[in-house]
């Protein structure tokens, strides 16, 4: 039914006050106007997610012609009891809690360095941005060639120096550090850009005031620059933390999760379950678990950031 405010008002019984009728008509047209957006959201976001949630409680297997049965939390318990889940979680945690802090540290260093350059600042900044602009597939192949144990330039050079280099991505000991390094190489520029923006937002007079006040560079960094950058650091950390759960392309190209499962994170494990073994029910359950871990982790970071900001004030006064 299409109701315009006018005929809704006319249709109102004499006992109703006109104001009530008008308000009701307005509410109706509000929903009418929102309907396309809501429909779009339902089709594009709610439906797939609901289907994922549904699948995670079933025995859905793509390639096997058995009827789909509701299995309760079987998928979840099976996953949580498996060793592969915990090792994948460990790899994801290394990306989130080792690679990301390293990206923040190196990004901060680069941002400070570029900010201190007097000329051609933009040039250096965009130079450092190149890794971030490359498609992950390109990054993967570039590193694959560079690190190839037999004909890669790195190992040729190292062998030239009478060293016996490891097989990098193919070595059980070096595969994970290699992938973490590539991730740091690729995503430190993003952190750098965010922190550079934060540094530029500090007025030059603040630095001059610090000099006049007799603050040493180290004191200025600790007491002024770092606290003023803190909000930017939190933003960079949260962005990278969320992204660190999604590392896939580079692993796929460089190691395929191997050797063994030594570089297999949750994302790769999900892919493996869903598209190699067609266990859609289990893959759905694993996706849900990842989502929960991500939400809990992000909330913890934000809570810690809030406490940190409060604590800083408390200490000072």
């Amino acid at each position, binding site marked *: 039914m299409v109701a315009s405010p006018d005929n809704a008002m006319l249709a109102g019984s004499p006992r109703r006050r006109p104001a009530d009728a008008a308000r009701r008509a307005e509410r109706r047209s509000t929903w009418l106007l929102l309907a396309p957006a809501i429909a779009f959201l339902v089709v594009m976001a709610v439906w797939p997610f609901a289907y994922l949630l549904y699948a995670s409680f079933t025995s859905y297997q793509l390639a096997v012609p058995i009827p789909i049965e509701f299995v309760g939390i079987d998928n979840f318990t099976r996953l949580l009891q498996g060793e592969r889940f915990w090792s994948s979680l460990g790899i994801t945690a290394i990306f989130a809690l080792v690679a990301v802090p390293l990206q923040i540290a190196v990004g901060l260093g680069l941002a400070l360095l570029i900010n201190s350059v007097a000329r051609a600042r933009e040039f250096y900044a965009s130079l450092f941005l190149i890794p971030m602009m490359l498609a992950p597939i390109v990054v993967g192949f570039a590193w694959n060639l560079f690190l190839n144990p037999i004909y890669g330039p790195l190992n040729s050079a190292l062998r030239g120096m009478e060293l016996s280099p490891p097989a990098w991505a193919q070595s059980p000991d070096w595969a994970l550090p290699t992938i973490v390094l590539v991730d740091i190489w690729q995503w430190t520029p993003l952190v750098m850009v965010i922190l550079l923006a934060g540094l530029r937002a500090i*007025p030059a*007079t*603040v630095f*001059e*005031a*610090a*000099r*006049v*006040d*007799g*603050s*040493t560079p180290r*004191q200025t960094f600790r*007491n*002024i620059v770092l*606290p*003023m950058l*803190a909000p930017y650091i939190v933003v960079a950390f949260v962005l990278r933390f969320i992204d660190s759960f999604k590392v896939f392309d580079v692993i796929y190209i460089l190691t395929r999760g191997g050797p063994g499962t030594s570089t297999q994170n949750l994302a790769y494990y999900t892919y493996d379950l869903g598209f190699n073994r067609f266990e859609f029910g289990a893959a759905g359950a694993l996706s849900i678990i990842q989502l929960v871990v991500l939400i809990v982790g992000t909330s913890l970071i934000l809570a810690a950031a809030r406490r940190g900001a409060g604590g*800083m*004030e408390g200490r*000072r*006064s």
Partner: protein
Amino acid sequence: MAKVELRNLQKRYGDTVHAVRDVNLEIADGEFFGLLGPSGSGKTSVLRMLAGLEAVSEGDILFDGASVVARSPQERNIAMVFEQNALYPHMTGRQNIAYPLKVRGTPKDEMKRLVDDVAEMLNIAHLIDRKAAQMSGGQQQRVAIARALVRRPNLLCLDEPIAHLDTLLRARLRGELKRLQRALGMTSVIVTHDPVEAMTMTDRLAVMRDGRLQQVGTPDEIHDRPANAFVAQFFGVHSMNLFPFEGLSGPDGRVARCQGQEALLPEMAQRFASADGRLLLGCRPGALRLRRAGEAAPEGALRLPGKVYVAEQIGDEMLVTLQVGELSATALLPERQAFGIDEPVTLTVDAAALYAFDPGSEATLHFGTGGEPGVPLHAAGL
């Protein structure tokens, strides 16, 4: 506190910009000194070199006879109040004020005592536990002043410290700063583009233009005896009116043209004319009088035809903006009078009130008297 000397000071930025040219100054111990000039005159560069924030291109700066050009701001023990945005926004007012003490490792209880003292002095004791970012502009500048005063520096540098505040607050802080400076007897240098600020606060001041000193003296000296037409026009509550004349002619050379308008000159004027018949006269707006058509002009005064651009009434006074050809002039009249827009009038100036300048070099040849009215309301901030 220190005596400060500047010797042949030069500042160049790159190859093209010569911001400060050969500045020589002596600032006495405990003096409140002003650097006044329009933007781009080099006044801020001089202050920043004094503070040690900017390297000296050539010349020397001495504190109590010892060169300080190689020393950092900290080693010079100077304090500075910036134009704006110089507080540490994430810290409270108290932390801001205490910061210079904190980095020097001052004991906590002494730090608290010093901060409380200076906060008391500046009437900000009640708000220093707020964060800097949550304070108004005036409160922030008070905190910035407190931060500068909390350690007794050799030299206090003030870089347009109140320029960004509203008029009322500016007038109040002007007074407070002057009282504080006197009470502490601290050698201070203030940079400002506002002549009223310079006039009211400083003991002595230097007027700058294009990197050069134009005149150094007390506010009275500079006001009454400006060294050239630029200083005369720049330094005052209202700009001085300048009338360039050419083609001196007529019996006794008393007729000349200003902007194509024929003017009658007073007898004293022709002495100051250049060989090619040019003349540059000036008067303060308060010395300019207006005669309507048909009104008789006084004998022996400068007479110049013009028209009213706009007439504004400010309290009991009239501020009339006039046009003589393309030239603009202002008259400040002591009584209310109605003028129509574009009404033709004759501008007259008493011979005694006229200043004369060299038409070529613009150096002052003759000083007039009077003509500066009481400080008008908008400048006093009342």
